[in-house]
């Protein structure tokens, strides 16, 4: 049996120091229709060894956060405020060259659709070597040894090094992407929807691989996705994003056991399982436009508990029952 079990409770205290610190991050997209605020003041920290899941519907800002963490946002996107500190280094102040050195070595991203971004005309080993060579690590022989080692870490045979991407299955390609991401032993590993193109059985293998390499590196990990079941199984903490805000963030068990924010409650209530046939429930309504954001709480139009206050005052994250919740109910 192989199992991906969430870290037991006692491990929660065994996490290391904060390696990622995001404070009041704001990201805007400048569009012809106006400025769209994709991330509107998000703060969180991730400790070494921890796995934070960020969930939300499309447009909630999760992928924008991933891109911002790598400082890879390009116009029309721009960071409008806040800070990101990775392993004690504040990203905004870095020169482009210094940031380039941070990527892969300190913080690495397995981007959305990475599995289709491998170079079709280069062998797997050359694609892994790219990063090693660029960061000027070790001699030729040492580099080859490192390629074999990272392939082993992601559960691929050494022969895979000589193959081209088209010779690999989807799951193997994703594991090559993971191998590239961990080749310089980063302290923070970000994965954006890493299994959305994969079959369920392969998804399990890939998440098992992530768990193994993250354990091995002792890295902090951020998993971005929309599959709530996957978050429950993989993340030690989850943050629920809505319209660019963190509605609720806390330990996975706490949130699944007792969701507090009305959006989290509806999200968890809308999960269908194979336990029994249920009324298929979505969350009625649509998220608000990110351009000309309404005042107050962005969820209020869909919220069954909306009060007058929700229309005028934006709820700030407050500590409630060992987590942060951005809702006037608390």
């Amino acid at each position, binding site marked *: 049996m192989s199992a*991906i079990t969430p870290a037991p409770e006692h491990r929660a205290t065994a996490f290391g120091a904060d390696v990622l610190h995001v404070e009041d991050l704001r990201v805007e997209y400048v569009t012809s229709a106006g400025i769209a605020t994709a991330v509107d003041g998000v703060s969180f920290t991730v400790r070494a060894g921890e796995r934070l899941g960020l969930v939300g519907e499309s447009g909630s800002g999760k992928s924008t956060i991933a891109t911002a963490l790598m400082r890879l946002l390009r116009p029309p996107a721009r960071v409008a405020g806040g800070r990101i500190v990775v392993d004690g280094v504040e990203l905004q102040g870095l020169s482009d060259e210094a940031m380039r050195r941070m990527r892969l070595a300190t913080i690495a991203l397995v981007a959305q659709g990475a599995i289709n971004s491998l170079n079709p005309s280069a062998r797997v080993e050359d694609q892994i070597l790219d990063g090693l060579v660029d960061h000027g690590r070790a001699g030729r022989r040492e580099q080859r040894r490192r390629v074999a080692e990272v392939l082993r870490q992601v559960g691929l045979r050494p022969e895979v090094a000589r193959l081209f991407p088209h010779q690999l299955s989807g799951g193997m390609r994703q594991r090559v992407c993971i191998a590239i991401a961990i080749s310089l032993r980063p302290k923070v590993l970000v994965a954006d929807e890493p299994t959305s193109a994969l079959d*369920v*059985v392969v998804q399990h293998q890939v998440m098992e691989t992530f768990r193994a390499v993250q354990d091995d590196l002792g890295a902090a990990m951020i998993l971005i996705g929309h599959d709530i079941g996957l978050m429950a199984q993989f993340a030690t903490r989850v943050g629920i994003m809505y319209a660019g805000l963190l509605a609720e963030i806390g330990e*996975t*068990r706490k949130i*699944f056991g007792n969701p507090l924010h009305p959006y989290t409650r509806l999200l968890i209530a809308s999960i269908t*399982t194979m336990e029994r046939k249920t009324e298929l429930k979505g969350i009625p309504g649509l998220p608000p436009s990110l351009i000309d954001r309404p005042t107050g709480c962005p969820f209020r139009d869909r919220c069954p508990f909306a009060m007058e206050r929700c229309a005028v005052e934006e709820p700030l994250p407050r500590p409630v029952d060992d987590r942060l919740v951005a809702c006037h109910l608390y």
Partner: protein
Amino acid sequence: MTTIIEARNVTKLFGNGRLRSGGGTVGVADVSFTVDDEKPTITAVVGESGSGKTTLARLLLGLAAPTTGEVLYRGKDMRRLTRSERRRFLGDVQVVFQDPYDTYNPFYPVEHALQLTVRKFGLASSAAAARSLIDEAMSAVGLRPEATLGKRPHQLSGGQRQRLMVARALLLRPKLIVADEPVSMVDASMRASILTTIRGLHERYGISVVYITHDLTTAYQVSHQMMVLYKGDVVEAGDVESVIRDPQHPYTRLLIDSVPKPDPDEPWALERPSEKAARVTPTTCPFVDRCSRAMDACSQAKPPLFRTSSTRAVACFLYEDAHRLDRSELNTVLTGAR
């Protein structure tokens, strides 16, 4: 009893095997399946990529011709339909594709797709009659015409676009809708509304649905019966409740166990292949290399279907004590499901 679509021992091979000694690739192998007008049913066809589920959909839609076997529309081979029969077929059998982004022409307002259907099939005699038909179809899928008409495709959400495609199919009052992964590209919160719509059309208009998906959870939620495909073979089929409650084929079990449960205290564990797992050849079980229950018998012959109850069949030697079921009789367990 009117049979709308009947697939008889349908096999589809890709590549004719002459160029390479390895032979062609199996799309689907020896599948028999019936859609009956009198017993409208929602059938889920589940499997991973490469399982042949989309190939099966294309065969049922007449978009691909079988290599052997035949697909009949109202008793007549699809390849020999006359022009007018072909037209009737298009009215009876409709499709909803996976990608709601690709199916619209971005230059036209979204209702163009519906108007085209009304016009081509002569469904309305006046513009007012066309408008009321379109309004009715939109309301049936939960779209407000006044909020949707006149919009361009990019102004609607993926969920709205997909529901509009269901509305388009509904205009023709089909007997069968083949839905190929209709919700896989749509946000989770929108999925429910599309699936509820599909289930509602079945209940309200007696439309049969073939729901092609890799998602067992939604397959369980919307369908009455289920066919599990693996590398082109039907490995398990039966009524959905018993297949999900008590999966018999180790592959079905693997699929069910792979779905992460939204409860951090439930384990997410998969069984490893057994020590008897062996290389797959045309004369072994197609799943023998990954199977947790593989036995010697599995690498000696390809398992036939066994009828494990009046509404179940499974292609696995674990059940060889049960009666054998000829593959052409597969629909006897399926139509027995209701």
